[in-house]
C-alpha cells in the first residue's frame, strides 16, 4: 500500500465516521457491513475482469445462488413435505424431486456424450435432439407431481422442500460451490467465443436463476420470501444478550443501554467476521497474483494471441478464473443472506447486484485487489447513504422551494439520481483514469 | 531532371523502433509499370504502404506530379488520384460485384456508368457475375473485382500489392495482360510481386529491394538480363 492508497482509505473511513457522527452509528455500521460484502463481491469480479479481462453480466445470478444455498443448508427441515405423497408420486416427494433433477442432469450429460462420440451428421443431431426431448418429458413426468405434493404442504408457512437446518456459516462455502457449478456450465459454453458473447450469455443465466428462485416455490418459497434463517456462528441474538446477566452487568458498568449495546455488538461481530474473510481473501489473492500463475494470467489478459502461441491453454485458464471469481461472489451472496436472515428474491436486480459491483471494481481500479476493496466501501457507501439520507438531503436542498408537486417529485427521484450519478462517475473514470483510483502496479 | 509522375524519395521508416525502409527510392512514370521485387522481408509491401501513406516516414519525401504529399492521409491520396489494392481483404465479400465497383466510385459525384463499362470491358467475367456476392467468386475473379474497384476512382496511379498471390499461373498471365492494358490507357502502375520473373517481364522499371534499400534499379528487361539478379533473386 502506498501513500495514495492510505489517503484514499482514510478518506473513506472518514465518510463512515461522519455518517456515524452526523446521522447515526447504527446506519454507519449497517452500511459498513454491506460495504464489506460489496468489497468481497468486487474482489470476485476483479478476478474475472482485472486478472483475465472477462466481462460477466451475471454477477447477480451468483449472488442469488449463494443466497439460495443458505436456504438449503440452514432452512428448517420440513419432513412432512419431504415425505409427502400424492397423485403421481411413487417415492416420497422429496426423493422423487431429487430423482427428477438427476434424470434431467443425466439426460443432458447423455446428450453431451453422444454429441462428442457420435460421428458428425444428421443421425447425431437427431439422436441428441431425441434424447433431450424425451428427457424433458420424462423429467417433467417425475418432477411435476413431486413439486405439486411438496408445495401443497402448508403453503402459508412452508410449501418448500426444507433445508438441513445447519448453522448458516456452512452455507458460505456451499454458496460458493453453487455459483462455481453454474459458472462452469456457462463458461464451458461461452468462453472462447467472441468476448461479448460471455456478457450476453451470463446476462441470460442470471435472469434464469432469478426467475427460478422467484417461481420455484419448492426451493425457497419464491416471492413469498424465506424468513427466519439462523444467524451464522458465532453471532448471538440481541434478545439473548439482553437476557444474559453478565452482559447486563457489563452494560451497567459502562453506563450503556443494553439495547444499543447489543445491537452494536452484533454489528461489530459481523464486521469482524466479514473483515476476516476479506483479509483472508486478499492475502490469498495477493499471493496468487504474485505467483507464476498470476503472472501467466496477466500475460494472457494483456496479449491473448501471444500467450496462446506460447502454448498456454487460454480457454482453460479463463474457465478456471471465471469459476473461482464466481465462487467468491457466490460466497459473498451466502454471507449476505445469512446475515439478513431472509431470502428476498425481489431484491436481486441486475442494476443493483451486477452493474453496481462493476462500477465498484472499475472505479476502485481494475486489476488491483485493494482498489476493489476501496471501490466496494466507497461506492457501497454512496449507494446506501442515499437510501438512508437521500430524502433528508433532497429535503434540505429543496427547502427553499414551496411545497407542491415539484418538490415532492424532486424528493421522490432522489434515489434515481444516483443511477445517473454513478453512470457519469463510471464514464469519467473510464475516460480520464481508466486504471481507477488505485491503479494496478 | 524533371520529376517522375510519382516518386517516393529516400524513404526511411518502420512500424516500431527499428526502420524497415532505409533511404529507399521508388518512382513511376506516367503510363508505365514499375515493379518492386525482392526476397521475403525485404520491405517490398512496406515500401508500397509508405508511398500510400499507411506508414509514417522518418525521412524522405513522396511527391505526386511534383506536389509533396508526404503529410497526406491515405484517404486524401485517394482524392489526389492514387488507388491502392491491398493484398488480402481487398473486396467487400457480402456485397455484389457491382456494389463493390460502386463503392470504389464512392467519392465521385459524376456519372460512373462509363467507368463501369470500361471495367466490365476489361474484365468481362465480372459483367456476367455482377449481381453475385463478391465473396462467392473464385480467387482470380476476386482479384479482378479488387482491381476493378480501384479503377472506379479513375486513378492516375494504381498500386497493387501482390495481385497474383494465390492464383493459378493461367489466371496470373491473364491478370498481367489486363494490367498492361490498364497501363496503356495512361494509368501508371506500381506493384509488388512475388513472381519476380513474370512481373519483370511486363515492367518498364524494376526495383530489387534488399533489407529495405535499393539493390538494383533498372528496366525490367535489363534486370532479367543481369546475371547477378538472375542468380540471386530469380533462381538462375
Amino acid at each position, binding site marked *: 500500500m502506498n501513500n495514495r492508497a492510505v489517503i484514499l482509505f482514510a478518506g473513506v473511513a472518514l465518510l463512515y465516521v461522519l455518517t456515524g457522527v452526523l446521522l447515526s452509528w447504527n446506519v454507519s455500521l449497517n452500511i459498513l457491513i454491506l460495504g464489506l460484502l460489496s468489497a468481497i463481491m468486487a474482489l470476485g469480479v476483479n478476478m474475472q475482469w482485472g486478472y483475465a479481462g472477462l466481462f460477466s453480466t451475471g454477477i447477480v445470478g451468483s449472488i442469488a445462488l449463494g443466497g439460495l444455498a443458505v436456504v438449503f443448508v440452514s432452512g428448517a427441515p420440513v419432513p412432512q413435505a419431504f415425505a409427502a405423497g400424492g397423485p403421481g408420486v411413487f417415492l416420497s416427494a422429496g426423493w422423487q424431486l431429487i430423482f427428477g433433477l438427476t434424470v434431467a442432469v443425466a439426460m443432458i450429460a447423455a446428450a453431451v456424450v453422444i454429441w462428442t462420440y457420435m460421428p458428425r451428421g444428421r443421425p447425431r443431431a437427431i439422436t441428441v435432439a431425441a434424447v433431450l426431448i424425451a428427457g424433458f418429458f420424462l423429467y417433467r413426468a417425475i418432477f411435476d407431481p413431486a413439486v405439486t405434493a411438496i408445495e401443497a404442504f402448508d403453503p402459508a408457512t412452508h410449501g418448500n422442500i426444507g433445508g438441513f437446518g445447519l448453522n448458516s456459516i456452512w452455507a458460505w462455502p456451499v454458496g460458493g460451490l453453487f455459483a462455481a457449478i453454474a459458472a462452469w456450465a456457462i463458461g464451458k459454453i461461452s468462453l472462447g467465443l467472441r468476448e461479448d458473447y460471455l456478457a450476453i450469455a451470463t446476462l441470460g443465466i442470471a435472469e*434464469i436463476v432469478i426467475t427460478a428462485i422467484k417461481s420455484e416455490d419448492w426451493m425457497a418459497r419464491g416471492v413469498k420470501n424465506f424468513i427466519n434463517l439462523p444467524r451464522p456462528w458465532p453471532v448471538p441474538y440481541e434478545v439473548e444478550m439482553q437476557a444474559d446477566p453478565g452482559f447486563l452487568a457489563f452494560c451497567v458498568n459502562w453506563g450503556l443501554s443494553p439495547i444499543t449495546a447489543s445491537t452494536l455488538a452484533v454489528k461489530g461481530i459481523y464486521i469482524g467476521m466479514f473483515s476476516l474473510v476479506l483479509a483472508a481473501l486478499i492475502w490469498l489473492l495477493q499471493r496468487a497474483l504474485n505467483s507464476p500463475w498470476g503472472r501467466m494470467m496477466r500475460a494472457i489478459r494483456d496479449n491473448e494471441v501471444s500467450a496462446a502461441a506460447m502454448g498456454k491453454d487460454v480457454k482453460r485458464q479463463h474457465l478456471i478464473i471465471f469459476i473461482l471469481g464466481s465462487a467468491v461472489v457466490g460466497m459473498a451472496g451466502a454471507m449476505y443472506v445469512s446475515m439478513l436472515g431472509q431470502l428476498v428474491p425481489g431484491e436481486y436486480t441486475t442494476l443493483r447486484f451486477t452493474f453496481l459491483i462493476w462500477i465498484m471494481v472499475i472505479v476502485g481500479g481494475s486489476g488491483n485487489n485493494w482498489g476493489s476493496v476501496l471501490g466496494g466501501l466507497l461506492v457501497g457507501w454512496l449507494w446506501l447513504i442515499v437510501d438512508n439520507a437521500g430524502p433528508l438531503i433532497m429535503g434540505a436542498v429543496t427547502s427553499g422551494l414551496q411545497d407542491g408537486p415539484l418538490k415532492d417529485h424532486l424528493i421522490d427521484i432522489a434515489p434515481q439520481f444516483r443511477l445517473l450519478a454513478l453512470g457519469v462517475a463510471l*464514464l469519467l473514470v473510464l475516460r480520464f483514469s481508466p486504471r481507477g483510483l488505485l491503479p494496478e502496479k | 531532371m524533371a520529376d517522375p509522375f510519382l516518386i517516393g524519395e529516400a524513404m526511411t521508416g518502420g512500424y516500431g523502433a527499428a526502420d524497415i525502409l532505409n533511404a529507399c527510392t521508388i518512382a513511376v512514370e506516367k503510363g508505365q509499370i514499375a515493379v518492386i521485387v525482392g526476397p521475403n522481408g525485404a520491405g517490398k509491401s512496406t515500401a508500397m504502404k509508405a508511398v500510400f501513406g499507411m506508414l509514417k516516414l522518418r525521412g524522405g519525401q513522396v511527391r505526386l506530379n511534383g506536389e509533396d504529399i508526404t503529410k497526406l492521409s491515405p484517404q486524401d491520396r485517394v482524392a489526389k488520384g492514387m488507388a491502392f489494392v491491398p493484398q488480402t481483404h481487398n*473486396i467487400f465479400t457480402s456485397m455484389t460485384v457491382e456494389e463493390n465497383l460502386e463503392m470504389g466510385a464512392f467519392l465521385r459525384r459524376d456519372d460512373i456508368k462509363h467507368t463501369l463499362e470500361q471495367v466490365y470491358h476489361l474484365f468481362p467475367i465480372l459483367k456476367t457475375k455482377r449481381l453475385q456476392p463478391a465473396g462467392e467468386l473464385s480467387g482470380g475473379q476476386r482479384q479482378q473485382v479488387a482491381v476493378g474497384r480501384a479503377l472506379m476512382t479513375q486513378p492516375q496511379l494504381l498500386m497493387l500489392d501482390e495481385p497474383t498471390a494465390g492464383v493459378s499461373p493461367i489466371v496470373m498471365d491473364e491478370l498481367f495482360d489486363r494490367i498492361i492494358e490498364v497501363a496503356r490507357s495512361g494509368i501508371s502502375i506500381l506493384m509488388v510481386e512475388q513472381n519476380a520473373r513474370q512481373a519483370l517481364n511486363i515492367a518498364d522499371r524494376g526495383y530489387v529491394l534488399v533489407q529495405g534499400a535499393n539493390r538494383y534499379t533498372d528496366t525490367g528487361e535489363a534486370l532479367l538480363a543481369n546475371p547477378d539478379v538472375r542468380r540471386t533473386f530469380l533462381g538462375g
Partner: protein
Amino acid sequence: MNFLNALVALLNFVVIPAASYGAQLAVGALGVTLIFGILRFSNFAWGDTMAFGTMVVILFTWLFQSMGISIAPLPTALLALPFGILITAAFLLGTDRVVYQFYRRQKAKPIILVVVSAGVMFIMNGLVRMIIGTEEQNFADGGRFLISAGDFKAWTGLAEGLAIKGTTAVTLVTALLTMAALFWFLQKTRTGKSMRAFSDNEDLALLSGINPDRVVQVTWVIAAALAVIAGTLYGLDKSFRPFVYFSLLLPIFASAVVGGLGSPMGAVAGGFVVAFSEIVVTYAWKKVLTYLVPESWAPDSLMQLLSTDYKFAVSFSILIIVLLFMPNGLFNKGK
C-alpha cells in the same frame, strides 16, 4: 368445426401474439445488429435507449392529448413517434460525441465499449426514472379492437373467438414499413451501401473514401429510430415500465445472435424465431388439443411445456444452442 375452432384458437393465442411480439423484437434486434455491424460492440444500453425513446413518445402523446389532437382510430403515439425519434437521435449523437467517439479513435477493444455502454445504460436508466418514474404507464388510445372476439363468434358461429387488437395491427404494419424502409435504404441508397461496405470491411471502406464519421452518425440516427419504434410498439401492445425494457435486452440480443450479429436479415428472422419459440413453449396447449382429439383423450393438465415465468429461459436456450452449434448465426455463412 372442431378443427376450425382449434385453428382459430391457435391463431388467436399463438400466431397473432407471436407475430406481433416477433415484429417488436425484430425491429429492436435490427438496431442491435446495426450497431454491432458498424460500431462493432454489443450495446448494453439498448434496452434503456428503447425506454428513453418510448418515454419521449409518451410525453408527447400526453401533450397532444391535452391539446386535443388525435388521429383516432390510430393511437396518438404514432403522431408522437417522429418527435421521439428526433430527440432520441439527438441524444444518441450526443453520447457518441461525448462518449463513444473517444474509444473509437483509440481503437479500443470491443469489450471496453461494452463496459462503456453499461455506463451509458446507467445514465439513461436514471434519466428515464427521474423523468417519468418507475410506475407502469399505459398510453395506448385509439381503436381497441380491429375485430373483437364477440363479433367474430357472432359472425362465424364458432365457439372460439378471434380478436385482433388495434395495437397488433399497428405493430405489424409499422414494423413492416420500418423494415421495408430500412432494407430499401441499405440496399439501394449510396449511404446505405456505404454502411454495408463499412460493416463488411472497414479498411477497404476507408480506401474507397467512405467517411467513417458520417457512417457512424447515420447509424446512430437509424438506431434511434429503430429503438423508438420498437419500444413504442411494445409499450402500446403491452405497457411501459422502465425495468421491463431493460430485461428486453435478452430476447433482443438472442434474436440478433440467432440471425448472426451484424446481419439485418438475420435479425428480423431471429426476432420471429425467438418470439414464436417463446410463445409456443409457454402456451398452455390444452384448449387447442381438446378441440383436436376425441373427448376421452382430452388432456387434464394445461399441456404447457414451461410456465410463462420462464419465457426468458427460452430466449436463453436459443441463444445457447446458436452459440454452441452456429456461433456465426443462422445467416452468416463462414465469416
